[in-house]
């Protein structure tokens, strides 16, 4: 359970940033009667943010697991070294 500070910060930033983008006032910016590729802008925006967050979450969760695995290995090595 030891992560780089950067990874930990990103893990906090991802939910907070996603939340911010999905709440007013940010979300109101996209509330316009416009079509993007024939689809209304607002739902397209929401689903795009959503999908983006999912992709980032996948990247991040893999990073977290691999870093933890690495730090566990270090711990084991440190134990052996004692």
């Amino acid at each position, binding site marked *: 359970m030891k992560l780089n500070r950067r990874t930990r910060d990103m893990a*906090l930033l*991802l*939910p907070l940033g996603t*939340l911010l983008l999905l709440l007013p006032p940010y979300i109101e910016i996209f509330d316009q009667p416009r079509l993007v590729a024939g689809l209304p802008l607002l739902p397209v925006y929401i689903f795009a943010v959503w*999908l983006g967050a999912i*992709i980032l979450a*996948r990247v991040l969760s893999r990073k977290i697991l691999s870093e933890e695995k690495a730090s566990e290995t270090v711990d084991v090595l440190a134990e052996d070294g004692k």
Partner: protein
Amino acid sequence: MLNSGLVVTVASLYLGGLFVLAYVSNRRAERGQSSLVNSPMVYTLSLAVYCTSWTFYGAVGSAARNGLEFLTIYLGPTIVLIGWSFLLRKLVRISSEQRITSIADFISARYGKSTFISALVTIIALIGVTPYIALQLKAVAASFDALGTTAGNAAAEGWEVLSQGHPHLFADTGFWVAVCMAAFVIIFGTRNLGADEHHPGVVAAIAFESIVKLLSLGAIAIFALYGLHDGFQDMVAKTDWHEGVRRLQGFSDGFEPRWVALTFLSAAAIICLPRQFQVAVVENADEKHLATASWLFPLYMLLVSLAVIPIAISGMTLLPATANPDLYVLTVPLASGHESLALLAFIGGLSAATSMVIVASIALAIMISNHLVTPILLRLHSFAAPDGRDVSATLLLVRRLSIVAILTLGFLYYRLTGSSSPLASIGLISFVGVAQFLPALIGGIYWEGGTRTGATAGLVAGFALWIYTLFVPSFADAGWAFMDLVETGPWAIAALKPDALMGLSGWDPLVHGVFWTITINTGLYIVVSLATRQAPLERLQSALFIDAFRRDQQSVSGVLERSATTADLIRLTRRILGPTRAHAIFRDYERRHGPANPDLMPVPDPGLIAYVERHLAGSVGAAAARTLLSQVVTGESIDLEAVIALLDETQEAIRYSQELEEKSQELEETALKLRHANEQLTKLDKMKDDFLSRVSHELRTPMTSIRSFSDILVTQDDLETDQTRRFLGIIQHESERLTRLLDEILELSRLEDGHVDWQFTDVDAVPIVRDAMEAMRGLAQDKGVVLSDALGDMSLPVHVDPDRLKQVFINLLSNGIKFNTNTAPEIWLTCVPPVNGDDAWAIQVHDNGPGIPPDDQGQIFSKFSRGWTQEAVRATDGTGLGLVISKQIMRQLGGNLVLESSDDNGSCFAVHLDALSQPAPGVQAS
């Protein structure tokens, strides 16, 4: 119209299949082949029990009525899931260490294993969730009825059928679903007591149901998109005129409060709903599964939400306005005559409903039996007596009766209400109810100051306000009771009206309820916590919860000082858990901590007592386990000093871990440097080898020819004089080359070691340069190279060894001449005055030769370089050490030699020299 017999058959087959699946999974788990069930994918799918029939039917209804608002129900959980490493993971870690059995157990364990809090949470959950269970039964019944009527009527009637009175009990689909579910849960949810409350059969079944409902909803959505329309764009373009479709394309005015409140509520629900806590936390077998669920479950919800939109649009635009939006999933395919698709939709809805009922009733049954019934039983003398009979069977019976009670309650609620209140609003009121757990839950794992009294105050107040602001008005809306109260407020005091407390009228009732319950709940929790003190046990538990990631939980057992006899402990465990599991627990403890002699009983030290308590807690909850143990344990006291030491230990651990982190960073850096050094050494080693082989080769070539010619001279007497002379000439030439090579190597090594006598004087550099040019002019003319300089009449006084400087220029010029392959070869010299701050002059030697290949540019000044080994160098009779020696000389002279530029148009070497401030003696600028 679908034959109801067919529908019943298909539904029965589906439920039967579910039983088989659960049975097989259970068997596999018992045999230790739980690899399939114990996978992140199944874990994620089990989380999808979140999507009940409320989602399956209700989300479409909500999308049709309120537009995009339905998305908030899935956005909130998405936020919680992608932030898994902070909240969910901590809950899972604590729960596995404390053997938590339910959310009530969790909150109660945090606040000193309080029986009162666990009972309170159980009651809130029961009142909050029962309508939700009723909702599922209602959804199944309504969808069944809708299938049974003709398409057009179904749209109009559907739900209303119910409000006109229920059919006879045995003709009621809801009844049979409830009975079926009760049987399922009793068989697969209460196999045995405890064992960490893992139910592999149940988890496998609900994971399967999650796939079924997603596929089913997806099929209807694809039908709506491509069967009824021609893709999304076509649908948007064709249906733009409809008011409801407009709502799906943008927000209506004043959407903000509901949007924010619903996002908050759904985020709270994904943790606080008893069934979600059950699947996400209690049933979790491996923390790492969360990592996968963190993106996969949001993806699941995204797909569900995506499927909802086309169904809602099709329903709104193709069905009559009187059609019930909550049944669009069924009526859209029915209206276009696709009955088999409607049947698929029905199965999807059935799976959504049954999975919710299964998990919710397991979670609630655990809570009721552990936190309501067991504490009461413990007060009975016969039950509580330490040497009483085996009660594990009784506890199991209690669990099963609880399940029957819950489903009965849900069924009664459904039979008695039958209101036409839309699905979504019942679900939301439920959400607000369970969201009352949030302050005590979050505060409990992040804030050490939260006390039992504070948590109780917050929970009671939040619950009371929830009843008053949301539950009561929902009864009034349905027209059964409290109409006056809601209309005018109690005693006609308008400021106390349930939907406009303190005169906050005009709010959306849900937002109003969320606002009051959550703010008062949180406020009281904090204020009362600050005003009260924690009991020692609370302090201990709060330290364990808050530092869940840092602490070795085993080290804590010494804090509670108490003693008991091992025989008492064993007897107690046998009574509660049955002989088999009791035996396993003690054997396990012995193996880990026990004496070397396995025949001895484990010593009843505090460690063993804590171990037993944890295992009992895993079956009957923390509070009941504590009560049970207190009957056989004497002299319990919490060693305050030990608690304080524990807290200090925490600080110590934090400091230590920070130090470790710094250390490990340092180590990492050192390791990196070492790696670099090693790489360089390896490279140097390789270069040295290259150099040696090169030198050997270079020495060998002249040596070979010398030897062969001298052999001829020695052995052949009849050589002609001319030939002899020629051979001797070759031998001489080769010897010279050999000597030159050795000289240069020697010189280089002398230069590097500093064993050279330097004759430094103050001189003008320009004449030295000109001397060098004169010396090379002969060679230049032979090769047809034009040699020129742009130095004019300038002078550059410097402090150098003139001979050595000349050597450098001769070397540069001879290189330039030898390697110039241009058809009009040219070499010219320029002088550049010092630029910004640097006081070194630069004399540049330009040529228009072929340039040095980019790969070699970095190595031409290295004596082991590749450039040195090139054929071109050897062909010109050079040793290739000239540039290296020149560079060494310039370094010793206090200047430098660099390659300024080199490309296809030629190269430019620059000799850097520090100019003396006053003119050199004897040198006058003319």
